[in-house]
């Protein structure tokens, strides 16, 4: 365990050094992350104004709160593992990772967390600027604020584990772009990124709650907005935990099969 912690510390250090080399790229990535919710925010605020100030229980301030929190949650939970995996396998960069006496997922986790922490330096002022510009209406009860952090952590764990598992499709398919695209479309509609799930028809809401998507992004957002009852929150935690366990099981199975495949066809 100590050895693993030591490895994480070293990963953090090298990753910080690496990330800071690419300040321009960091900022460009972040602009994308900030811009997407701002566009949705402007669109939905306009829709709300033109339909008497409110859509599906969200007014302008409500939308502002939703999309600003969404931006933070999405930033803190997203991964780039699909591209990383495809690149690794196509470029033959996977073999060096396999030769190390440590599971490659640790490096990816450390890289991801490091990136999130570094970019907070920019995300926090961006959030403040957006809050000043759009005046979000955000008055969550104290218990919801307290529940938000674990919900966020679980959302990150779920998204990371599931996306790491899906990214392993690269072991079988040379071009995983098609698979990625399907996943991202589902994520866009069913996770609450495009709009609050309350605005969608009931069957889409049911689909989003049955699949893991709602629990990856919308759940912590709605929690912090004070739109969930304590009972809803408990259901959410249970769903997150269940999906994490399921994804972990899936990850172990796919990993074993993927490595078998990789070492059969030529590493």
């Amino acid at each position: 365990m100590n050895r693993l912690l030591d490895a994480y510390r070293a990963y953090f250090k090298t990753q910080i050094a690496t990330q800071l080399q690419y300040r321009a790229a960091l900022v460009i990535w972040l602009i994308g992350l900030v811009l997407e919710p701002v566009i949705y925010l402007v669109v939905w605020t306009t829709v709300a104004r033109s339909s008497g100030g409110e859509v599906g229980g969200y007014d302008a301030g409500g939308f502002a709160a939703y999309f600003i929190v969404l931006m933070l949650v999405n930033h803190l939970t997203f991964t780039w593992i699909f591209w990383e995996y495809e690149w690794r396998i196509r470029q033959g960069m996977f073999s060096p990772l396999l030769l190390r006496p440590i599971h490659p997922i640790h490096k990816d986790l450390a890289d991801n967390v490091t990136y999130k922490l570094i970019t907070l330096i920019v995300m926090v002022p961006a959030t403040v600027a957006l809050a000043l510009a759009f005046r979000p209406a955000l008055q969550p009860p104290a218990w919801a604020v307290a529940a938000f952090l674990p919900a966020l952590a679980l959302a990150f764990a779920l998204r990371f584990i599931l996306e790491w598992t899906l990214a392993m499709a690269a072991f079988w398919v040379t071009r995983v772009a098609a698979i990625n695209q399907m996943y991202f479309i589902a994520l866009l509609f069913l996770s609450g990124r495009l709009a609050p799930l309350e605005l969608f028809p009931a069957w889409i809401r049911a689909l989003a709650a049955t699949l893991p998507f709602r629990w990856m992004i919308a759940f912590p957002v709605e929690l912090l907005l004070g739109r969930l009852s304590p009972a809803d929150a408990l259901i959410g935690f249970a769903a997150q935990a269940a999906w994490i366990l399921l994804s972990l099981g899936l990850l172990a199975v796919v990993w074993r099969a993927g490595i078998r495949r990789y070492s059969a066809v030529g590493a």
Partner: protein
Amino acid sequence: MSEAAIRVENLRKIYTIGEREAGMRAALRSLVRRRTREVAAVSGISFRVAPGEIVGFLGPNGAGKTTTLKMLSGLLYPTSGTVDVLGHDPWRRDKAYLRQITLVMGQRNQLGWDIPTLDSLELNRAIYGIPQAEYRRTLDELTELLDLDPLLRKPVRNLSLGERMKCETAAALLHRPRVLFLDEPTLGLDVTAQRRIRAFIAEYNRRYEATVLLTSHYMADVEALCRRVIVIHHGQLLFDGELADLVSRFSPHKTVVVELEDEGADLRPYGEVVAREGGRATLRVPKAETASVTGRILANLAVIDLTVEDPPIEEVIEQVFNQDAGQEGGREAEQPAAVLA
């Protein structure tokens, strides 16, 4: 030979590869029905390597060298046959196994591109769980042997190829592996850098009694480091034995260099004249006729000097590679143990 560090028996690796004709029609047809073909990259090789031995693993491109090294290091699992390295099944990739081996593949980098080598070494220290004191000691040794001092603090992307390979080598050996699989460790390096890496491998082998299996297209590497060589071709073992035996066994010729008083003497009756400069000539003579030819030259011509040499090792290797596997080489492959003994 019971205490072999590496034991390979009847090792085979067959790849299934997709194939199709060129052109649009074939492309469309392959959408519906994929045609595949089986290619044997390694077809039944056996050998053993004793602890502390350096063995040169030779063969032309596509002979199966890299595939074999990948099976030995656990990246590929064999289609059939057994591999045992230090008592481990490599393809299980036990952490205990991975901590004892290293695979250096040409210019595949395990160093972070954007950070100084020292940071990557520190990362390897943590990953391999090397105690601080031992890390310091090994790092000092590697720094001294490879002359790394001016390089360690520069970002890797600012290093030249030779400098980077030295750093890669250091990173690959920081955990003091007992078995080294080196696939073209000097590829693309200039002569000085090659010599440096070569000297380092020899020193590392001596110091830690490490077992080394090395492929290289530079015969200078092989001559400097390996007393024993294993030659494979078309996935089959052609030869396993001492480098000197390879030459005598596979070269059907000897080189006779003769210096004559009479610059105009006709040497054609004695053998193929490869080079001639004034009174000095180089002849290629069938091995079996060497004695009679030199006898005739000494008897018939006014000789100032005469030497008989083996042809250069490159030439012999080329000859070995040019013959088809399974012909003369097939017999060689059956008796490596005798050569080894």
